[in-house]
């Protein structure tokens, strides 16, 4: 029957154009043996599939023992970072066909502890993130703990740190950083960037404390501006920029050019009146 052939041919054309057979070489950490092993899987990839899609496919249909970490599959949770073809990337944001290679190597994210296979342990990373006090430091204790209104901030003031607040703590910068590659105590691009994010925030008063926290060999002075962190960051956070701006502040403090920063206050009470005909909201019940 002719139509069948036609459909068959068109399917072949479709296959040729939009799909590809790809070999995945996955370097896995075996926590039982305490050693590496490499598993190879061959998967037919359709256009649009990400590395994470391929991993899900492998785990569901080829090898149930493969472990990896992922959650949101849309580049927002920061759990799926791994070394893909030698570069730290998010598995869920990496289009397979865009890598333009028939063999793709996947390894766990470098410079992190290992749990199993591709899953890495972020405890040290988050320890450092906690150490730099990633929250507003303010002197108005009452307002801080029992807020009555919002803190004041203009859009221009917000722009000074907005870029840095987009970080999803995926750790790609930390894995790409050559200083982290040999020094596990180095705070890392993410923590240093976050320090600057809070200093640049007009609502924060902790500038001097924060500078003291990072003014160390394993802090700001560990950066040699290789720029790899900003190269791999999937959110355009540009940690390298934040670190150099932070270093400028550290130098300015050494030259006694920085005084204690007074943070902005709260927004003044709203003067708006309820228009006629609009009912009162129901009372709070939570």
């Amino acid at each position, binding site marked *: 029957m002719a139509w069948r052939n036609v459909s068959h041919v068109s399917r072949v054309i479709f296959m040729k154009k939009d799909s590809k057979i790809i070999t995945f070489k996955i370097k896995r950490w075996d926590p039982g043996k305490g050693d590496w092993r490499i598993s190879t899987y061959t998967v037919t990839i359709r256009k649009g599939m990400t590395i994470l899609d391929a991993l899900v496919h492998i785990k569901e249909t080829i090898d149930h023992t493969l472990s990896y970490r992922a959650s949101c599959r849309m580049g927002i949770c920061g759990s799926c970072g791994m070394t893909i073809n030698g570069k730290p990337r998010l598995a869920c944001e990496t289009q397979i066909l865009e890598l333009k290679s028939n063999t793709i190597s996947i390894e766990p994210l470098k410079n992190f502890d290992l749990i199993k296979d591709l899953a890495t342990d972020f405890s040290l990373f988050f320890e450092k993130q906690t150490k730099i006090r990633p929250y507003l430091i303010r002197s108005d204790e009452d307002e801080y703990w029992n807020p009555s209104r919002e803190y004041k901030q203009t859009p221009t003031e917000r722009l000074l740190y907005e*870029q840095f607040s987009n970080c999803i703590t995926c750790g790609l910068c930390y894995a790409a950083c050559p200083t*982290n*590659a040999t020094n596990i105590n180095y705070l890392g691009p993410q923590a240093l960037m976050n320090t600057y994010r809070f200093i640049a925030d007009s609502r924060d008063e902790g500038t001097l404390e924060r500078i003291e926290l990072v003014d160390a060999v394993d802090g700001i002075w560990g950066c040699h501006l290789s720029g790899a962190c900003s190269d791999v960051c999937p959110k*355009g956070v*540009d940690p390298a920029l934040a670190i150099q*701006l932070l270093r400028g502040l550290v130098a300015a403090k050494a030259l006694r050019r920085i005084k204690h920063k007074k943070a902005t206050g709260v927004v003044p009470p709203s003067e708006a009146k309820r228009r006629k005909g609009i009912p009162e909201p129901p009372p709070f019940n939570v």
Partner: protein
Amino acid sequence: MADRKRYRFKDNLWGIWGWYGNLKFNLERYLYLIHRLTGVGLVLFLLLHIIVTSSRMYGEAAWIETESIIQNPLYDLGMLLVIGALIFHGLNGIRLILLEYGLLIGKPTQPIYPYKPTLKRRTPRLLIILMMLIGTVFFLIALYEFLLVWGVLS
């Protein structure tokens, strides 16, 4: 902390390989590597230089002997490399000093996809080109001097 002992951190550190082994990153990453290599090279040369000139302490005869050893094209070639390294290291060092204190590196912006880190924007890249142009001029002058010494040019 206890957990860290259970897992084996060192198995997954990029190590020294992380400084130079990976060839997939940005231009500045290579400059970082060359800066480090030339820095270490210059320190090694400084040691060599001290050893060579210290022979002067042992009298004129020792100095003449050392001079006869170092007066060969290979040593001159080495010197040319040292000068090249110094030119690169010095000029790139000036670039690093500027950028690392937040000068000429740019300002935070709203990240709009496709993201472009400030290091890849115009001013920092122009700085690289400027430094390398100056470096080339310096190196050509040094090369000219060496060719004169070797008698290739007259």
